[in-house]
């Protein structure tokens, strides 16, 4: 006799996603996707530190190149939109998995401890993932309104489509906006510190040979993303880039 319980089975990916272990797997994979995007986005934007090419800021050329990726092989903007759709899907999956796991965890302890709890291993980052994630989600909306859509009042009054460099300078010359960006990057760093370690566990990537490196990787990634992103608005605010 084997212990196979015959249940009515949903199609494989749905059945897998229904389990919490499956959802954590999805969280980890989408997390990797989002990390790759964040790093690529950051490195690409470092072009603001580069000199102009024929009087045009290099980042403007870079933005145009992104918009017309693989053009004229494929219609303009197509590749960009495929990438964007993928990114949005990944983002939504990450949020949905987090949301339903949070509900599950709330149900798992409806009566909370009455006395004070003493935590030994859980840290600030691991215990605030939902908050750092949610607040960061709002930051993303602001960021899109500010620099992608040019929607007032998030965007500076002088915002103009395609003038990436000018918009960049205009937005970060406003001290509160710069402060908000830097704080949000701090939150992202905290989120990544736990997330980048946690994903190894969720994916079952556990090996005596690299276990010791997992925390180190998470710290380095968090610091790299925080510093790499925060220097850009700060450079504008303090006049190193103008």
């Amino acid at each position, binding site marked *: 006799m084997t212990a196979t319980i015959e249940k009515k089975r949903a199609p494989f990916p749905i059945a897998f996603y229904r389990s919490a272990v499956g959802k*954590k797997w999805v969280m980890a994979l989408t997390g990797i996707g989002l990390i790759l995007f964040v790093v690529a986005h950051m490195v690409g934007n470092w072009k603001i530190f580069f000199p102009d090419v024929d009087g045009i800021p290099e980042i403007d050329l870079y933005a145009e190149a992104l918009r017309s990726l693989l053009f004229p092989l494929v219609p303009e903007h197509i590749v960009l939109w495929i990438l964007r759709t993928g990114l949005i899907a990944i983002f939504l999956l990450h949020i949905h998995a987090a949301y339903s796991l949070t509900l599950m965890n709330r149900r798992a*302890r409806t009566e909370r*401890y009455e006395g004070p709890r003493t935590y030994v291993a859980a840290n600030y980052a691991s215990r605030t993932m939902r908050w750092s994630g949610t607040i960061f989600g709002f930051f993303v909306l602001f960021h899109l309104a500010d620099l992608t859509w040019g929607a007032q009042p998030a965007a500076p009054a002088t915002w103009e489509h395609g003038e990436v460099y000018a918009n960049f300078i205009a937005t970060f010359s406003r001290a509160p906006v710069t402060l908000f960006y830097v704080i949000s990057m701090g939150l992202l760093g905290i989120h990544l510190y736990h997330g980048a370690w946690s994903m190894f*566990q969720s*994916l079952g990537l556990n090996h005596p040979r690299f276990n010791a490196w997992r925390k180190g990787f998470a710290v380095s990634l968090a610091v790299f993303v925080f510093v790499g992103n925060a220097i850009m608005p700060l450079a504008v605010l303090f006049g190193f880039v103008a």
Partner: protein
Amino acid sequence: MKVNLQVWRQEGPEAAGAFKTYEVDKISEEMSFLEMLDILNEQLVNKGEEPIAFDHDCREGICGTCGVMINGQPHGPQLGTATCQLHMRKFDDGATLVVEPWRATGFPLVRDLIVDRSAFDRIIEGGGYISVDTGSAPDANLTPIPKMVADTAFDAAACIGCGACVAACPNGAANLFTAAKISHLNLLPQGQAERWSRTENMVEIMEEYFGSCTNHGECEKACPKSISIDFIAMMNSDYVKAKFKNRRLVAQS
């Protein structure tokens, strides 16, 4: 020595509970935490009050029956120690100790400090066993198992099923318990036949009762047997494999 206790008293599952304060005097440092509760209970009985209900059995840290929250930590502040093996010398004279039952939806409260942990039995029923032929006993050491594998399986098998991992987990997850129970069989040759059905069933039954793991690592620190969360990673990887395996070809991998 003397301690001030704040103990959770609750007459039954539906009754309202509250902390009640007790002072226990003239206890020896050599006493275990449970012996200190025995003394208190004796005093309560002498006064005609209801004694505090708490679970215990072996009192030598091997059965997993005992377990309460002491000052917000399952089994108290000493790492790798069950409540019955925790000694009063770990506390300062005159200390205030808050004593509370495990709290998790999967562990409904029975009375005072006792919770019903039968959800763990449901998980075990899902696959915490191996199938063997009865008959004459096989020769010893018939199945070669590398030392390292045997040791790891034994580390997992050290789980006494007390539920401290669930109690410690901010999400009320039972992943450490389930992972330990799955791993100690999945690691050994004898456990291979049911490996994939075991992993799938036990994980899915676990999720009916408990929360999900967010890798805080609290459970590992609360575990009286210091079972590593590495086993949770093993379980996650086996669960995904179980879902992807073509079971007809399973013997070939």
